[in-house]
């Protein structure tokens, strides 16, 4: 039995597998199948200061080896998160990460302020959602906008702050460095890749939003490359996500420099994916006489 525990920005996780935001609701939708305490942590549905209806459906399309979504941050607002959803999770033995989005600096700050006083263990700052017109990716697209937002958020954020980065940028490393310089305690990447599908019978896009974020197994090599590049460039922990479906994918991500992992779309294909990844990882560590999962972080032998 290997030691699967990891520590990210002072927060202790019993294992490195976290359910990704937008793929696990507010943590309790899969309780019929397995308790959320099987997971090291859960990143809750992206929440904004005020409730948001989200985008007009259809919001889902399938792609080869993946999918698109244009959900658009439908959420009940931060007060509901703090009063209803976080308390429902407080007795559960898993790290609770509140994913916070905003439409402008002010709404980000006010939401983070409120959640700073809640029982969330960590805040994941969403500056990478591609499905909203204001906020999200608009902030994460350049080092300057990302840095100035994180600078303001850092002033009011009393929880460990993990910033979630978008791959839809020219140079993710420069954004990662800028965000680290403004006080981010950790980074998580990647959010979804912007994509599109057209229904040739109707000759309209499948998504009502025309475009949406791509996730699933097909994006894994892009995510892995970005995690590798980013982890080499910063000192803070990097949480890797993007198409992780198996324990082998998890090992690749850890070797590339991820200190922990988030699993999202794989849950749609196999709800037990995160649980299987934990046990597969455990077995591989044992089979290879590796005592702690943290021993392999960043250990890829590059040319």
């Amino acid at each position, binding site marked *: 039995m290997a030691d699967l525990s990891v520590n990210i920005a002072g927060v202790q996780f019993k294992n490195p597998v976290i359910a990704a935001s937008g793929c696990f609701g507010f943590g309790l939708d899969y309780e019929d199948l397995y308790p959320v305490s099987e997971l090291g942590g859960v990143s809750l*549905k992206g929440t904004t200061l005020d409730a948001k209806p*989200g985008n007009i459906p259809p919001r*889902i399309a399938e792609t080869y*080896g993946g999918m698109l979504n244009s959900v658009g941050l*439908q959420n009940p607002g931060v007060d509901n998160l703090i009063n209803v959803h976080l308390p429902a999770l407080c007795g559960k033995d898993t790290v609770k990460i509140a994913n916070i989005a905003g439409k402008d600096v002010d709404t980000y700050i006010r939401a983070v302020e409120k959640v700073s006083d809640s029982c969330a263990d960590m805040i994941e700052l969403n500056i990478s959602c591609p499905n909203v017109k204001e906020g999200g990716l608009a902030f994460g697209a350049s080092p300057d906008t990302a840095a100035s937002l994180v600078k303001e958020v850092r002033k009011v954020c009393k929880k460990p702050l993990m910033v979630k980065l978008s791959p839809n940028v020219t140079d993710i490393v420069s954004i990662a460095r800028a965000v680290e310089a403004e006080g981010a305690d950790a980074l998580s990447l990647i959010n979804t890749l912007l994509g599109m599908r057209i229904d040739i019978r109707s000759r309209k896009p499948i998504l009502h939003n025309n475009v949406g974020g791509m996730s699933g197994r097909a994006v894994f090599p892009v995510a892995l490359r970005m995690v590798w590049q980013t982890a080499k460039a910063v000192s803070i922990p990097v949480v890797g996500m993007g198409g992780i479906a198996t324990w082998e994918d998890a090992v690749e991500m850890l070797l590339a420099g991820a200190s922990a992992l988030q699993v999202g779309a794989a849950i*749609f294909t196999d709800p037990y994916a995160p649980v299987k990844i934990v046990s597969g990882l455990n077995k591989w560590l044992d089979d290879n006489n590796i005592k702690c999962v943290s021993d392999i972080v960043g250990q890829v032998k590059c040319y």
Partner: protein
Amino acid sequence: MSSLKQNLYPISEINEIASGIFSFRISCPEVAEEAIPGQFVSILCGEFTLRRPISICEINREEGWIRIVFERRGSGTDWLSQRKVGDTLDMLAPIGNGYPEFDDKSKIILVGGGIGVPPMLALAKKYKDKCAVFLGFRDKSKEILTDEFKALTPDVFVATEDGSSGSKGFITAPLNEYDFGENAVICACGPIPLLKKLAELSAEKNIPAFISLEERMGCSAGACFGCVCNTVHGYKRVCKDGPVFNSSEVIFDG
């Protein structure tokens, strides 16, 4: 209240009941034990990322099986249509709210359009001759399950657009002529234009109507908010808050 299960279940019977339309009996005692009419299952089809949601057509608690009837439409259902008896299906089930209980109603009006007909059979099995059944198909080649409905209740009306079976035209015609009596409820599943007409009929005649909606799904478990429909209470998840909705709450426009 049913609880969600995910497992590999064997297919015990396969019939192609019309051209491109397949009936599968799936052996799944733990699902059959809890499933109710109006719920659905979500099946992993080969290597495709997203599960395919399919309505439950029939539930047999005693023998521990459910039946699904689906049409070969796209790549996922194409894969599914090629399965053989004895193959196992990776299925997440039973999903959704299902239809409410109607023990206090005198007449249950079942309206099915095309591939929306199969889930009505589970209701017909439950309420038997309290049901009046209205089935609409494009033409005779798409007609399914009529005889099985007739075995449960004498009041079965069929309409096909070209008149190749039953009356010619849409199923709403015989429905508009029908005397619903004092204490009826409408249950329906089918294309949106049909459901819209039923919502109007329901409002006009003050008869409650429960319609089953569909939408492209992500997780099928209520976790992702991908499959929403518009209602007077905001966007609701078709997988978890539905698929059955009171027609008076649904906003159809688009």
